[in-house]
């Protein structure tokens, strides 16, 4: 458990947040630029003192202003991967990696040099100097350096924000590998939802120095506060399930979640793997009877659980499809002509190819 209750005033900016996130796993601090995410991680790292506040990780108190206690940053054992990597320019990649390792406590070494270089593909870079590395390579070295300091918590402050799309695609799989192979709790700061979608277990939505909602990623994706942050085009429920059937020849996989299944276009799916998909609200079609004679691959029965005002003439309908919910954007006119209201049975139609899917 990572329990955070902190406030900080910096000039006109005012931060006041409290959340408790499960550990291990990845907690995403998600919000627009300037909402105070970095301030939170700086306080977690001990680089910034909260005005009043306390931070507790498992049974270790990191800071508690009420008790007048603050563990110095250099003794917190919290790895910090900065947006700009911050590799030491006078040291080689190897020197950078060893820097934190040499200063970590001798006893509980959970991750070794070879394991880290293997996991992050750093072996060919060891003798190089930071200024010869690409942006993606720098972030991988920064990750390795933080890991080798044997952290009990890893802070990732927009580690991909300074990279272009292809570099981001290069680093993301390494982050996923870390999450899956190590049991180090992580706090991941981002304003890019696709990163959060791929990585996070628990999402803290922030806006203007406040937490507007916090919880599991499925639950958060249904919230109006989430829509307010990502904008209308990216609104859509995130579903997590298990691949029960993979048809590589046709490039289709069957994703099971709750009591429902979904056909997903995913060529590389592996049976038994966990996967996440986001169903964009504007890609969903609602019908009062099952689909026939349509190209739509998914036709799922559900019940209307909520209707809320969206932008302009549209309405967002929350449909419970058995153990999970999805969001569909329909016009007010369509809503009226279908006669949908709370409790109405409804069919949700989803094209398999329209899913932003990711196999975890």
């Amino acid at each position: 458990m990572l329990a955070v209750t902190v406030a900080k005033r910096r000039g006109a900016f005012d931060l006041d947040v409290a959340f408790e996130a499960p550990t291990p796993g990845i907690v995403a601090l998600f919000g627009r630029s300037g909402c105070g995410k970095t301030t939170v991680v700086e306080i977690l790292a001990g680089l910034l003192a909260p005005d009043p506040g306390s931070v507790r990780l498992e049974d270790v108190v990191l800071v508690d202003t009420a008790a007048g206690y603050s563990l110095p940053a250099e003794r917190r054992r919290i790895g910090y991967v900065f947006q700009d990597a911050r590799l030491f320019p006078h040291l080689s990649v190897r020197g950078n990696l060893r820097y934190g390792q040499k200063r970590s406590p001798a006893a509980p070494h959970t991750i070794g040099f070879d394991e880290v270089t293997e996991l992050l593909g750093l072996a060919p870079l060891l003798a190089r100097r930071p200024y010869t590395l690409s942006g993606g390579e720098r972030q991988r070295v920064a990750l390795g350096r933080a890991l080798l300091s044997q952290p009990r918590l890893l802070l990732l402050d927009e580690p991909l924000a300074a990279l272009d799309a292809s570099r981001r695609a290069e680093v993301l799989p390494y982050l996923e590998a870390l999450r899956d192979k190590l049991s180090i709790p992580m706090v991941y700061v981002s304003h890019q939802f696709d990163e959060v979608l791929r990585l996070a277990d628990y999402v803290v939505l922030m806006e203007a120095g406040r937490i507007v909602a916090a919880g599991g990623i499925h639950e958060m994706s249904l919230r109006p506060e989430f829509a307010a942050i990502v904008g209308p085009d990216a609104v859509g429920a995130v579903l997590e399930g298990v691949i029960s059937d993979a048809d590589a020849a046709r490039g289709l996989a069957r994703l099971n979640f709750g009591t429902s299944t979904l056909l997903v276009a995913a060529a590389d799916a592996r049976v038994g793997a966990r996967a996440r998909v986001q169903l964009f609200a504007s890609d969903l079609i609602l019908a009062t009877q099952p689909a026939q004679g349509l190209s739509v691959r998914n036709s799922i029965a559900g019940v209307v659980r909520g209707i809320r005002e969206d932008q302009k003439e549209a309405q967002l309908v929350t449909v419970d499809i058995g153990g999970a919910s999805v969001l569909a954007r329909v016009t007010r006119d369509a809503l009226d002509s279908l006669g949908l209201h709370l409790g109405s049975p409804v069919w949700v139609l989803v094209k398999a190819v329209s899913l932003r899917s990711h196999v975890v």
Partner: protein
Amino acid sequence: MHDFFGAAELDALRLSLAVATRSVLCSLPAAVLVAWLLTRARFHGRMLFDAFVHLPLVLPPVAVGYVLLVLFGTRGPFGHWLYEHFGVELAFSTNGAALATAVMTFPLMVRAIRLSLDNVDRGLEAAARTLGAGALDRFASITLPLMLPGVLAGAVMAFAAGLGEFGAVITFVANIPGRTRTLSLALYTAIQSPAGDALAVRLAIISFTLGFAGLLIAEWLARRVRHWLGR
């Protein structure tokens, strides 16, 4: 060398090198500390301290030499104490010349070091902190190596300037052959004597060569270190 340069020139050259070396070696750690205090530390009277450190740049060197004579002369408060406890005599000695040179070149050194300390990315120090490095450790492993270009530049500049320090040296430790008669003092003495023209020319050539070499070495070192730091 002995064919062209006589004992007087070699003596003066040897003395100048000894004085400049001692002065740089002794003042460098203090200059790093003062540069750090002036750049990073917050304390009352920082502006006064800053002005005090830079005083030798604007004071007449003779005045600095006189103040040193009053304080570090055999009967001066510090000079007396040093002699009583350590048997060190600064007045009219080579070490005294080094002290006068150090005081005069100190502001040069501090300025060069401050410039490079200002350029050290505080974010790297924060990163070192999260990796478990305490304050002294961070300074030694991150800050100092990154400010090395400035430290080296400051040292070489101070060394080159120290070879020719005149006013403060002649006032504090006089002009004693073999003990305090450095290059510039020997040059001055040669110019003052009726038959000293040839000697003066040779001393001037030595001074010119040393100064020029110093500047070249400073530039070369700075390039090497910048390259090493990857800039």
